[in-house]
């Protein structure tokens, strides 16, 4: 058995320059600039930031171009880049109640302080392709309307006044938030760690799981208590200054899912909650995250674990698309030695099988003859 251990350097180098050529495409078409991607493919940029788990628009845009628009490849590039940077610390927790809100809707209350603000949404569009956009038509400036500054409390705070909804999730006093970028995953895991994994999880995977809960696999009857999108300020405690340093603002999407709950041995009948918080304008992802967060609280709330979406180890171990793509895609890399060994084994087993078959047939013949 001969196994090649070297070779392919020239082929690899040439494949990469061919990739660079195909990435650029027809040279008579102007090359994309990163600011064009940041401005005009903003939600794709947001997805790469959220699943790449790195808030940096220009880097996400670069990753999208470099990956030729392959989002998972782009997310992979961003994740790899992260590992090259030193860490300055953990921010103070953001306050979503103090958001510069760009969109805020509730499916549970029509009238609520601050009102329903649709913002830049695809909702209520007719989903008809727009030939004018293809022709590069100019776009009008958005309309303005005077607004008095009005507090916009989270809807969960409004429901809490009646005592019919569980409070925001608490952890024991001395609990230090877990960090999956520092420690390996361990099951069962605390809710804070689960939320970190879900926030960077694959949108498609979480969407499908969230959908499965609605279709009856771990039914928990959800309502969107609130979705809000906007910018929040970020602050960091540093040793050299006596106050938290303001770092600037980031755009996030928050989803408060409210779920009917008939009560159990562990909790009275009340509304329970699932929570979603995602980088950028990523509404579908935040909703899917909130559905999965609620489903994964089954044990905590004394519910039977009967469906995939409630199985913590199943959901969290498979939600990371960089890990998933790494393991699936590694199958196409050379496995010549492995396969030679398997081939050998199958040959041997086949020979033994054939020998047994032939022996059996010979036995039958002899018996028939006798």
């Amino acid at each position, binding site marked *: 058995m001969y196994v090649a251990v070297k070779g392919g350097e020239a082929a690899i180098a040439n494949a990469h320059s061919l990739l660079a050529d195909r990435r650029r495409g027809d040279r008579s078409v102007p090359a994309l600039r990163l600011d064009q991607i940041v401005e005009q493919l903003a939600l794709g940029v947001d997805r790469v*930031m959220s699943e790449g788990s790195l808030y940096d628009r220009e880097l996400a845009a670069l990753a999208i171009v470099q990956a030729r628009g392959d989002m998972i490849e782009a997310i992979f590039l961003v994740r790899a880049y992260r590992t090259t*940077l030193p860490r300055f610390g953990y921010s103070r927790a953001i306050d979503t109640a103090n958001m510069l809100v760009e969109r805020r809707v509730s499916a549970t209350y029509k009238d609520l302080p601050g009102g329903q*603000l649709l913002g830049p949404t695809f909702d209520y569009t007719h989903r008809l392709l727009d030939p004018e956009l293809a022709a590069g038509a100019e776009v009008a400036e958005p309309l303005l309307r005077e607004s008095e500054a009005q507090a916009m409390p989270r809807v969960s705070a409004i429901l809490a006044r009646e005592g019919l909804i569980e409070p925001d999730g608490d952890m024991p006093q001395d609990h230090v*938030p877990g960090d999956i970028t520092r420690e390996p995953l361990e099951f069962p895991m605390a809710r804070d760690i689960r939320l*970190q994994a879900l926030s960077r999880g694959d949108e498609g995977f979480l969407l499908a799981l969230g959908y499965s809960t609605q279709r009856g696999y771990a039914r928990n009857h959800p309502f969107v208590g609130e979705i809000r999108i906007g910018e929040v300020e970020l602050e960091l405690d540093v040793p050299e200054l006596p106050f938290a340093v303001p770092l600037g603002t980031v755009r996030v999407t928050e989803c408060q899912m409210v779920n009917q709950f008939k009560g159990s041995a562990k909790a009275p009948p009340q509304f329970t909650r699932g929570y979603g918080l995602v980088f950028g304008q990523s509404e579908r992802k935040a909703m899917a995250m909130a559905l999965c967060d609620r489903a994964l609280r089954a044990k905590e709330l004394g519910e039977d674990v009967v469906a995939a979406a409630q199985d913590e180890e199943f959901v969290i171990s498979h939600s990371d698309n960089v890990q998933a793509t790494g393991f699936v895609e590694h199958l196409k890399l050379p496995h010549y030695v492995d396969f030679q060994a398997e081939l050998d084994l199958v040959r041997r087993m086949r020979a033994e099988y054939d020998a047994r078959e032939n022996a059996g047939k010979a036995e039958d013949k002899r018996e028939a003859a006798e």
Partner: protein
Amino acid sequence: MRGQEARDQAERKAAMATLAQSSGDDIVRLWNEAGLPSDAELLRGPETGLVTLRGRIGGGGAPFNVGEATVTRATVRLPTGQVGHCYALGRDKQKARLAAIADALLQDPARRNEVETGLLAPLRSALTKAHEKRRAETAATKVDFFTMVRGED
């Protein structure tokens, strides 16, 4: 004394917030227009690293880690001795250096006004304008509900 110290810190923090939220291009342009001095000894950086962003479960509960963000920091010392710091989202090293110098200049009573009028005031008014525009654009998408009255008589 205590009160004065607290006010100074609040002012310093507000200036840092303004600088962090402003674009590097705006800072450089105003810096040059105001003729602010940019010679300072770099004590650290400018260097880019990561800050892990935290949220709270349910919005107000226990903290959890959401993901990371790029942050660039710099520390400078002026020829007159004041030390200034900057931490700002993104990877703009020029911005971090100038913002750190601005922080140091603000601690020099002789230069404070110059930085305030030439740099911070215009940056602040641009940010306020942008926020007001954003608010007004969003407000135009506010849903006004009309109650449909069914005729009973």
